[in-house]
């Protein structure tokens, strides 16, 4: 399987342990930094969440890569096997964008409905059944 000697692969395992542990600690540190636990007040800067989120996402993907390629030995398998697993997974990138967009749209809809519900309409005199708020159907 691996093209390493027994002693080398034993060392690689210890290296992997420290690597994953270290990356996890960095992630937690950066996450807490972004929430203002390391330097109080830093979370008041609204854009700070974006670089923080991006960095921890990249670090998590690196951990995932390491687990798949080293611990699950994907690096030592035939390329075709790796592709049959990784290509379908890559479809999820589209799903991420699509559904997050969808969620944002739900929020906008809900706020729109709330806004409309809060509006008070003056009762109309004279013309009954005349809908003032719909410009589309105005004759």
């Amino acid at each position, binding site marked *: *399987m691996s093209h390493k000697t027994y002693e080398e*692969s034993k060392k690689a395992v210890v290296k992997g342990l420290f690597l*994953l542990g270290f990356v996890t600690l960095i992630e937690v540190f950066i996450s807490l930094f972004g929430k203002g636990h390391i330097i109080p007040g830093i979370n008041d800067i609204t854009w700070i969440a974006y670089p923080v989120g991006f960095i*921890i996402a990249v670090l*998590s993907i690196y951990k995932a890569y390491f687990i798949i390629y080293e*611990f699950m030995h994907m690096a030592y398998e035939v390329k075709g096997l790796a592709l049959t697993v990784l290509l379908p*997974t890559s479809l999820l990138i589209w799903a991420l964008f699509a559904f*997050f967009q969808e969620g944002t749209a739900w929020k906008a809809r809900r706020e729109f409905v709330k806004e409309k519900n809060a509006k008070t309409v003056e009762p109309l005199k004279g013309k009954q059944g005349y809908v003032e708020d719909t410009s589309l159907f105005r004759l």
Partner: protein
Amino acid sequence: METTENVLHQHSENHEGSWEGAAAPFNISYGKLMMWYFLLSDAFTFAGFLIAYGALRFSSPSWPVPDFVFSTAPFGIHDAPLIFVTVMSFLLIISSVTMVRAVQEGHRENKRGVVFWMFLTIIGGAGFLGCQAWEWTNLIGKENMSVTTNPFGSHIDAGTYLDEKGNATGETFKAGASYLLHKSEEGGHDEGHAEGHHAMAKGDHPNAFVDNDGFIHKKFKLASGPAAGQVQMEEFGPKAFGALFFFITGFHGFHVLSGVAFLLIIMINVASGVYASRKNGYEMVEKIGLYWHFVDLVWVFVFLVFYLF
């Protein structure tokens, strides 16, 4: 080192053509290939759950802040954001590493080594489950979160809490600050809380409203935002949070639980010499190893989505 792949590879090369039916697709055994494809399908299930979490979080005007929700740990530790869950992550990482060692010993046909490292892996997995049990017990029993109730809310605008007479106190909060709705304690036996909300009668008070389930909704006067100057009360947080948390971490925890069960079965089989007689480098240990690493892999993303973001 004679491993499964080498055996299969040599075996397929000894035949003239692949049409004899002897060549293994991707030079991998049937069992391992199917384990990979099972894990692929499982990855889609988890991805569906986590993307649903993301969509609902994006659709909500406010969301419970994880470093506030997950800030307690056993032995009475409070205000330690994400510390306990980091320990849980380490447990899974360590058990993943011991699993790699078990697979390596399997390749060397070292039965004692396989049993030893698998045993450590099981300890790690069981430790993780224990931690998760504590986390759930704390959330359900002490903080009153359930699939349909989420007492973790956050303020949209800044303001000041009211005292018993309905006057503004010195206790202020900023926009986006998190709060936890406490329950009115009938007997007042909870020793840990210094908030002084042990027993309040149901109904309206100048400083709070106690609903029929006993949740105390503290009242406050807004200092900023479109409703500045108005008196409002703390509402429940987004309802979906509880359901998403319990279903997703529960689904992952169930994977860990079944992983521990299979690891135990396979470890007992290893010890009784079932796989040694197959002379295939303990391939069964490799297969459960793939599953176990996958459980760790999923945790990387559950950890990212629920606790770090």
